[in-house]
Every structure is written in C-alpha cells, then in structure tokens.
C-alpha cells in the first residue's frame, strides 16, 4: 500500500543558491499528484528531496521536515528511504552493463533475495506491472540498452517497482518518449496508484489533467497553488497559476 507524505517548511540549496523556499504540502496516499511549473522552478529538486537524492550531490543542502506516513524521512537511513521511495528519472537510465532481467533483479538481490525461481517470479511480476513483459519475455538476458527508449523507461519503472516501494517519484517519465509510449506510461500510472503513492513531474498540462488527482504548481522555488486537479485547471485561485496553465508564460 502507498504511504502519505507530509512536507513541512522544506528548503533546499545548491551551495548558496536557495532553490526551494518553505514548501509545505500534504500528499495523500494512493493518489497521483502532479508537479507542474516552468523550467528551473525546482520541480526536480523538490521530488529529489523526497528520496534524499538531493543531498548526494556536492553542495546539496536540505532543511525542513518530510514525513513518510508518521516517520521522519530525514531521521531514517537514506538507503532505507530510497527502498521505500522509488524513483523514475527523466531520461531512461537502465544500467548499461546489465541485461533486462538483471536490471530488474538487481534491487531484489541487494535486498537479500537469492532464490533463482523467486527472483524470476518477482522480475516477471514487475515487468508485467510495467506493461513490458510481453515485449521482453523472450529476450530477458539481452542487454537492456538494446531496448527502445519507451521500453527502457518502462524497464526503469519495473526496476523501481520490483523492490516494492510505497511511494513512486517520477520526474518527467514521458518527456523522452513518443506519443504512444507516453500513453502507455500514463495508463500505467493510473493502474499503479492502487498500490503506490505517485508523484509525477510533468511539463504537459494535458497529461496532468488526465492522470493526476491533485496538482501542485511551482514557480521560482515556491509552491504557488496546490489542490484538486480539476479545480486547478478550471478555476485556479492564483493569477500566476492561471497565466501558466493558459500558456501565458513558462
């Protein structure tokens, strides 16, 4: 099952540059939350704070509180956090030296699963969830980089799902994909929300409208507006939100 996320006064820096200013928002469990906003407004930085990836880059600094369910995310071991909060990146990044099978199995192996048939079962299950199984079942042991971009991205989704996280962060997962692959990823997101809490960054307004229960609009590192997607797209409360979604800037 998914977990809720509570963000309180989250601030993030790159060196001296304050990139996120006092973000507070509650993300409901088992819902799809879209993060929208113009380029450079801090969307990626925000979701990278939620699996503690931001602090791994040089000069990356975070302050504030994030709770996963009732647990303080920043009091947990970061490695544990990332097993519970999975991530799919903007560019498909299957591990290039590994096969399709190995890409999905690696997280399971690191989690201590050794049994061959159990591994294969879990890999199949994850690939099915990511709607990739039928396309790759005959070439599981071929290199992952031989897949198309869209397949690679679904492989990355399978890889993230295999370790059974509670939250799935997706940073523009469809931005490098063609319309058909994009649609498949969107269908996938809708199916997956039964089991996971999903945060998805997107530049595509229609996409947000299609799949998100709630939408958050970021601008210059601030959370401008956050609420029900339909309300936000029909009756935005803030002038800046309206300007953005009507395409007046960004």
């Amino acid at each position, binding site marked *: 099952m998914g977990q809720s996320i509570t963000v309180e006064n989250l601030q993030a820096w790159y060196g001296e540059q304050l990139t996120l200013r006092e973000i507070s928002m509650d993300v409901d469990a088992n819902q799809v939350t879209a993060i929208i906003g113009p380029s450079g407004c801090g969307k990626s930085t925000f979701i990278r704070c939620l699996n503690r*990836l931001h602090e791994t880059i040089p000069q990356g600094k975070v302050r504030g509180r994030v709770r996963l369910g009732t647990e303080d995310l920043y009091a947990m071991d970061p490695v544990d956090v990332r*097993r519970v909060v999975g991530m799919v990146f903007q560019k498909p990044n299957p591990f290039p030296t590994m096969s399709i099978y190995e890409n999905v199995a690696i*997280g399971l192996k690191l989690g201590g699963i050794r049994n061959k048939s159990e591994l294969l079962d879990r890999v199949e299950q994850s690939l099915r969830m990511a709607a990739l199984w039928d396309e790759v079942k005959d070439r599981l042991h071929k290199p992952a980089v031989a897949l198309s971009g869209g397949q690679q991205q679904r492989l990355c989704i399978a890889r993230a799902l295999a*370790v059974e996280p509670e939250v799935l962060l997706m940073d523009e997962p469809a931005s490098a994909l063609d319309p058909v692959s994009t649609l498949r990823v969107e269908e996938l997101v809708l199916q997956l929300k039964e089991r996971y809490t999903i945060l998805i960054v997107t530049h595509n307004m229609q996409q947000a409208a299609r799949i998100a229960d709630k939408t958050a609009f970021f601008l210059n590192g601030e959370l401008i507006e956050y609420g029900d997607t339909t309300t936000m797209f029909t009756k935005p409360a803030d002038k800046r939100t309206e300007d953005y979604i009507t395409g007046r800037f960004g």
Partner: protein
Amino acid sequence: MRKVSSASKTADKVFRVATGLCASSPVLFLVAIGIVVFIESVPSIKFMGWHFLTGTQWNLGDMYGNLEVKNGVSAPAGATYGALPYIVGTLASSVIALLIAVPVAIFTAIILAYRVRGPVKTVLSILVELLAGIPSVVFGLWGVIVLAPWVAQFFGPLLTHLGVVIPFFRGPVGTGMGLLSSGLILALMIVPIITATTRDLLEQVPILYREGGIGLGMTNWEVVRKICLPYVKDGLIGAVALGWGRAMGETMAVLMVSGSAINYLPHSIFSPISTMAAVIADQLDSALTDATHLAVHALAELALVLMLLTLITNFLARWLVHRGGQRVRSGVRA
C-alpha cells in the same frame, strides 16, 4: 564564382601531409624499432634456437680463447645464452606488482573520483601525480636504503609464516634484495598511472546511472561495484595492461633492488632475481667486449622477447575485454 586562392590550397596540402606524417609516426617508430631489434637478434636466434627461451645459463664464454662455430654463427668457446631466469623474473616481479598495485590503485581512484571533493581532492591528485614524477633511480635508492632492510627484518619474516601453506613464501628471507622488493617497488611505481587512469574513467561514468543506483537504494559501495566498475571495465583492463607493460620494462629501480641474480631461477618470493630489462642494462658493458658481438646480439634478442611479451600481455588484456564484452552481449552475465 570566386576561386579559393592556390596559396591556401597549397597550405592545405602541406597540412594534410604534415598531419599524415604525425599520425603515422607511432606506427613508424614501432615498426622501425621492431625491425632494428629483430635484425640485431638474428645471429643470437640462429645460435640458440628455442633454447634461448628455455635455457637457464647465461654465459658469455671464454672471450680470450678460441671461437667455436654453431649453426653458422661464431661465438666464444662455451658461450650460451639462456634467458629463462630473466623471463621468469620479469613476469614474477611484474605480476606481484600488479597484485599489489591494482587493488590499491582502484581504491584510491574510487576515493579520488567519488569520496573527496574540493581542496582535499586537488591535494591528493597532485600527490598521485608527484609520485608518478619521481625518477626511477630515486625509487631504487629508496628501495635499497629503506625497503630492502624493512623486507629483510620485518615484512619478510612476517610473510614466512604463510610459508606453511604456500611454499613460495618460505624463507630464508636473505638480504631483502630480490623478487619481493622488486615487486613492491614496481607496485609503487605503477600505482600512480593506474590510479590516474582509473580516476578519469570513473569520473566519466554518467551521473544518470549512478543516481539510478542510488535511487534504487544502493549503498555507495554497491553503486561503485555494480554500476561504475562494470561500466569502466574495458578502460580499466587497458589501464592494468599499461601498468603491466611499465612494470615489465622498468629497469633502473629493479636493477638496484633485485639482487641481480644470474643463472638462477627464483624458488621463493625472497630469491634474488633479474629481469630482462635489468639484464640488458647490466650486461651491456661486458657484452661489448665480446669480439664476435654475439653477446650484444643475445641482449638484443632479450629486448625482442621483452617487446613481444609486452605486446602479448596487451593483446591478452584486449582479448579478455573483448570476450567479456561478448558475454554481456549474449547475456551470460545475468
């Protein structure tokens, strides 16, 4: 239509010839040196045949006595050139050097590439480069004054305890000048080159893949082991081959700490040895006094074997890489 002036066309021609020459110069040098060394070795090859590679005696013969003729080559009476001890010495000392240097260099490179930043990283990198810049003879001197006594009095006796399980570690330790000291000093000399190359390789691993690993809940070490090292494997093997070549060809420092064993096959890690490169440097003077010049030809053949051995190790490394690559492609790695 405007025409390009003929002057700039000439310049282009000159440029093309010049770049062509420069580009082919490595090949030209390699071929030229190879040919010279080969021609110089011919008399010795005729004289010794395969025994050059299997013989253990290196004897210039009686230079003031009669000449004898064998296989159409005249030589001082009793002359024989068996290079096996030096081939073994070269291989053994360089392999010991690799066994020590490769892990050390890889760990140092990992630390330099991922674990330290800012001034610490700069200082450490400079130190590694400085180490690479120390002249060979200084390493040798340090080896004689510090390393050999340390091996003789402390490290060697410690290792002999392993002799119970591994016969090659059995004493006596002796003077400390020998195979172990040669290996250690060679390790020290090749660590910088392997470290610097590996660090550069690791820094080129796209952050995308590393973050993919981190995002999956891998520890730093797991990211390095599962993602970064496999990613740079090809280059890494190249770096090791480079280091190996250096270790086999290194002359001065080895000459100083090897114990300069002649006609003696090492039977323990403490045995005095000689390497091909060291023997060439060491024996050239006396070889030049051979009126038949055969001794010089024999040294040339030694150089030829050394060159071939370096080439073979290089190709071996490349072949390993290639085979590894195929395994990934056919997916056996999973």
